[in-house]
C-alpha cells in the first residue's frame, strides 16, 4: 500500500501523460459521450407517463420478447456448439484445421449486410439449406419448416453473428488447462466423461458464461444480418432495432429515442455484467496458477 502511494507522487519519467490523456478524454467525449447524452436529453422532453406508454406499446413489447428470446436461444446454441468447436480446435488435429480456425472469425469480418442477404437466400424455401427443411408440393405450396421470414430465421442470423464469441473465449482457457489435473483425475479412477464433467467443465464455466454474455449482448443490438431474413412483420418477426428504425423513417424521434433508451440501459447492464464476469475469469485463472 505504501509503495503504491509513493509511486503516485514520484516524478514521471515518461512524457506525454497530460497530452495523451487529455486527447483521449476529449475525443471520447466528442464522439461517444456527448452524442449518447443526446438520447437521454431527448427522452427528458417526454413526461414519465408518455415514456412509459411508448415503451410498453404492444409492438414494442412483442419486439422485446422476440429480441430477447431469439438472442438467448442463439447464444445458448452457440454455447453448446462453440464449446465443441473450441475443444476440437485445441485438442485434435485434422486436415484443414488452420483454415477452419481462421474462418471461425468470419462473422466478425463479414459485413452484416452481406451475411444478411446470404443467409436470407440460403435459408429461403428455394435456397440451398432452406429446401432441406421441407418440400414444394404440386400446387407450389411449401410443406415443412419455413426458416426465412419467421422467428426461426432471426435465430439463424443471430447464431451466425454470435458464433465466434464462445469459441474465442473458451479456446485460450482450454489451451491453458493443466493436463496434470486431468491425469490426476483419471489416475484416481475417473472415466473420461467424469473428468470432463467434474474437472474440465467447472474450469471452463467462467469463460463459457463470458462468451455467452458477449454473444447475447451482440445479438440484442444486431440489425443488418437480421432484417433480410426476418421479413419484419409487426408483432411477429420485428426485432427492437427494426422498431426503432421504423419510427425513425416516420421521423417520430421521441418514440424511437424512448425505445432506444430501454435498449441502451439493458446493454449497459450487460456490459457491466461482462466486466464482472471477466474479472471473475481472470481471478479464477490466477488462482489456478498459484
Amino acid at each position, binding site marked *: 500500500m505504501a509503495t503504491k502511494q509513493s509511486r503516485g507522487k514520484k516524478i514521471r*519519467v*515518461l512524457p506525454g*501523460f497530460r497530452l*495523451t*490523456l487529455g486527447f*483521449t478524454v476529449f475525443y*471520447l467525449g466528442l*464522439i*461517444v459521450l456527448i*452524442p449518447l447524452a*443526446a*438520447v437521454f*436529453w431527448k427522452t427528458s422532453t417526454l413526461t414519465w407517463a408518455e415514456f412509459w406508454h411508448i415503451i410498453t406499446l404492444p409492438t414494442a413489447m412483442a419486439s422485446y420478447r422476440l429480441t430477447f428470446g431469439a438472442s438467448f436461444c442463439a447464444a445458448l446454441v452457440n454455447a453448446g*456448439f462453440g464449446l465443441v*468447436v473450441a475443444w476440437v480446435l485445441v485438442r*485434435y488435429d485434422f486436415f484443414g484445421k488452420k483454415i*477452419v*480456425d*481462421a*474462418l471461425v472469425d*468470419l462473422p*466478425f*469480418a*463479414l*459485413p452484416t*449486410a452481406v451475411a444478411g*442477404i446470404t443467409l436470407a*437466400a*440460403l435459408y429461403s424455401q428455394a435456397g*440451398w*439449406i432452406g429446401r432441406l427443411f421441407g418440400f414444394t408440393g404440386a400446387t407450389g405450396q411449401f410443406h415443412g419448416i419455413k426458416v426465412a421470414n419467421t422467428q426461426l430465421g432471426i435465430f*439463424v442470423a443471430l447464431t451466425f453473428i454470435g458464433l*465466434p*464469441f464462445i469459441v*474465442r*473465449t473458451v479456446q485460450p482457457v482450454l*489451451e491453458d488447462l493443466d*493436463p496434470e489435473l486431468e*491425469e490426476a483425475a*483419471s489416475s484416481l479412477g475417473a472415466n*473420461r466423461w467424469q*473428468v470432463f464433467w467434474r474437472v474440465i467443465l467447472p474450469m471452463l464455466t467462467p469463460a463459457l458464461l463470458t*462468451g455467452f454474455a*458477449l454473444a447475447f449482448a*451482440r445479438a440484442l*443490438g*444486431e*440489425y*443488418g444480418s437480421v432484417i433480410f431474413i426476418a421479413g419484419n412483420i409487426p408483432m411477429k418477426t420485428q426485432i427492437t*432495432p427494426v422498431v*426503432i*428504425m421504423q419510427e*425513425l423513417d416516420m421521423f417520430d424521434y421521441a418514440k*424511437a429515442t424512448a425505445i*432506444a433508451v430501454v*435498449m441502451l440501459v439493458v*446493454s449497459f447492464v450487460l*456490459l*457491466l455484467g461482462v466486466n464482472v464476469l*471477466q474479472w471473475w475469469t481472470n481471478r479464477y485463472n490466477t488462482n489456478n496458477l498459484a
Partner: protein
Amino acid sequence: MTPAATTLHPPRPVVQRRTTSEPPLVRRGLIGVALAFLSLFLFIPLVFVFTEAFAKGIGFYFETLRDPMAWSAIKLTFTAAVIAVPLNCFFGVCAAWAIAKFDFPGKNVLLTLIDLPFSVSPVIAGLIYVLVFGAQGWLGLYLNADHPAFPWLANWLNDRNFKIIFAVPGIVLATIFVTFPFVARELIPLMQAQGRSEEEAARVLGASGWQTFWRVTLPNVKWGLIYGVILCNARAMGEFGAVAVVSGRIRGQTNTIPLHIEALYDDYNFTGAFAVASLLALLALVTLGLKTWVEHQNAALNQTEITR
C-alpha cells in the same frame, strides 16, 4: 464488445496423451459435429456468396461493379474508411499510452467507457447523431432559432446549406463511432503487458519522448497495432445499421457499399447484390488472412524474445 475475441493469441501444438484423450470414435464424432455446425453457418454461406455473384456470368459481374451507382458507393465507403481509421488509430495510440504507461484514478471507468460503442446497437449509434445534428436535433434547433448564440455562424452555415445528417459527414461520424474502440482495445492490454521499464530505460539513457515512442514502444506493439487497424478497417467498410440511419440512402450520393447491396437486393437484382457483396466478402477473407499472418508474426516475435 469483443475484447477476449479479438486479442492476439499464438497457436499451440496439440499434445496427445492416452490418459487425457478420447477414444477415436468420440474424437471423429466431435470433429464431425464441429465441422457440420461450421459448414451450416460459415462455409456454405461463404461459398454461396461467390457462386451467386457469378450466376449470370463474368460479364454481368463486372457490369454491376462498373455501374456509376456502385462506383460512387465504393468511393464513399473508401472516403469514410480513410477518415475514420487514421483518427481512431491516433486515438487508440494516445489512449493506450496514457492508460498503459501511467497510473491515475478512474482508469477502469475510462476503459469501460472506451468499450461503450461495442455494446451500443448500430441503429442507436446512428440515432444519437441524428439527435445531435438532425433537423430536430441540437444543430437543427440552433440553425432555426430566432436568436442564435452566434448569428454570424448560424447565417454562415445556413447560407451554405450545411448538412451533416443525410450527407457524407454523418456517414463519416457514424463510421468513426462504430469503429471507435478497435485500435485502443488491441493496444491497451498489449502495452500494459509490456510494462514501462524499457521506455524508462530509454529516457534515462537520454532519448527524447518521441524517440522513445518511435524506437522502443512502436516496434514492440507493431503487430498489435496493425491487427487493430485491419479490424477497424473491415468494420468501417462494412458498417450497415449505423450508416443506414444517417445516410438517407440517396443513390449515387449517400449510399455506401453495404447500402448499395441493400438497394440492389430490394430491387430483386439478387445477382447484382451478391456481385457487390462479393467485394466485401473478399475484404473479409483478406482481413482474416492478414489476421492469421499477423498472429504468426507476433508468435515469431515472442519466440525470438524468449530465446534472446
